[in-house]
């Protein structure tokens, strides 16, 4: 037994990589359709959008870049599908310079799929420097902060922005964030000052740090990682890439848990041996 445990503890790490790869690939090729349970924090975002009247102003900030695409793009697609289905006016923007092209691509794709028109039903403002200062500037005068949109069309006079002067005219806002320049910044410099309701969508890495904001009501909902995106897809009854990835996610987690348990068992078997881990 000890010899086996010793061999296992010294196993080539590449075997573990292969195990994880297999655990992800197999369910992707042959899904087994595990059920997806919707959490209250994701439901809160859905319910708020669902309750908005038609032509309300919905601001979606793409605060991520391609390195977080697999987690946050499905969230963006699901939110946009929901917003367009509800006939909301959508304003898009990004605080991440390298995410500009990606965000515009998502807007164009979902708008084409739902038959929405740029300038009339939605506008993508693109990126502008400043971070927190940009949010304050948008809170004072949206047209000063973004004189033109991503396609260089002047923002003043756009039908989609009719009646919108600044952030106070935004009915709901969601920041899809992969780091500091995102949900927290929007809350601190936007919602807290200009009084609009907001929620967050985040990568799994930063989600635990955002729960205190959710608990205190500083954000009214939170979509966390690919799991959160899959929950949102379940709510809008439109399965997408997040739902498709959930089986693989569960299988990989199962493999990791089994490996952690086995490592602990081997550790206890070898404990006390000379040169063994302590």
């Amino acid at each position, binding site marked *: 037994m000890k010899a086996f445990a010793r061999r296992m503890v010294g196993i080539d790490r590449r075997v573990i990589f292969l195990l994880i790869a297999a655990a992800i690939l197999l369910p*992707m090729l042959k899904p087994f359709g595990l059920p997806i349970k919707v959490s209250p924090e994701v439901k809160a975002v859905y319910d708020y959008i669902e309750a908005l009247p038609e032509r309300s102003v919905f601001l979606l900030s793409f605060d991520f870049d391609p390195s977080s695409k697999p987690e946050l793009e499905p969230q963006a697609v699901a939110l946009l599908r929901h917003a367009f289905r509800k006939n909301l006016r959508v304003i898009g923007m990004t605080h991440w310079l390298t995410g500009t092209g990606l965000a515009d691509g998502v807007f164009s794709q979902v708008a084409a799929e739902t038959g929405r028109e740029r300038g009339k039903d939605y506008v993508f403002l693109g990126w502008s420097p400043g971070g927190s200062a940009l949010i304050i500037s948008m809170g004072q005068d949206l047209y000063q902060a973004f*004189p033109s949109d991503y396609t260089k069309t002047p923002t003043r006079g756009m039908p989609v922005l009719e009646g919108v002067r600044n952030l106070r005219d935004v009915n709901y806002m969601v920041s899809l964030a992969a780091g500091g320049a995102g949900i927290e910044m929007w809350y601190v410099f936007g919602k*807290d000052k200009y009084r609009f309701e907001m929620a967050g969508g985040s990568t799994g890495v930063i989600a635990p740090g955002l729960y205190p904001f*959710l608990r205190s009501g500083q954000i009214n909902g939170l979509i966390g990682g690919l799991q959160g995106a899959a929950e949102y897809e379940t709510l809008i009854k439109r399965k997408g*890439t997040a739902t498709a990835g959930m089986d693989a996610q569960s299988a990989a*987690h199962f493999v*990791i848990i089994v490996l952690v348990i086995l490592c602990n068992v081997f550790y206890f078997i070898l404990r006390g041996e000379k040169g063994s881990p302590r």
Partner: protein
Amino acid sequence: MPEAMLPPETILGAWVAAGLTLFIYSFLYKDNPLFKLSEHLYVGISVGYSVVLAWHTVFLRLLWEPLKKSIGEAPASPDSYVLLIPAALGLFMLTRFIPQVSWLSRIAFAFVVGFGSGVAIPRTISSYILKQIEDTVNPLVPAAGGGFSAFMDFALPQSGVNTVILLIGVVSVLFYFFFSVEHTGAGMVTARTGIYFLMIAFGAAFGYTVMSRISLLIGRFRDLITFSGAAYSYATLVLLAVTVLSLVGWEVVVRRQNGERTRE
């Protein structure tokens, strides 16, 4: 029915994406030239993309075009030249590279630090400290008269049980980092409780991190599976073969060179 042909640029994009993904993952075998090539490409392209976008968005859209327009419309008005002030401050930043005039950069930095602190401090205190303290000391008996909600509903943030757990967690963790008093007796119990709370928090954070990384892997695998179809000219399969063969070839060359060195 035959599938619609994809545009050549989409197919080319798929080949580049699949190739670079496989090259990056080849690092899981060991550090190799394919990984280095894609790593350098990634850094170079990211910087190039950022510079071009910043030039168009910041310099042209926010400075050059409005300045040209305002001077063209009212050349005699001093207001037309107001954008030259931030432009000058931006140029002052660059004087860091010229020692003789680098003192000018202090003006720009003073502006940035002064503005940044003035804007950030009150908002940060309000959002991160006051609001969070307010939430930490939630009343156990709500003012509405609903009574002590001691039911074990962990999903409801405002339940009495959660409020008590939160209060114990905050106090014990703060006490753990309070080093002026020796952690003995009741102090040790409190500090230990703080450690348990910290460990649970780290565990939750680590669990979420693992979930996040696996999600990224799923995203890349999804693209690789998509690009392995006939519509993309079997990009993934062809490039996987190229990657494996290149690694084998590289390994053979490296081993031969090492063997020659040993003989010498």
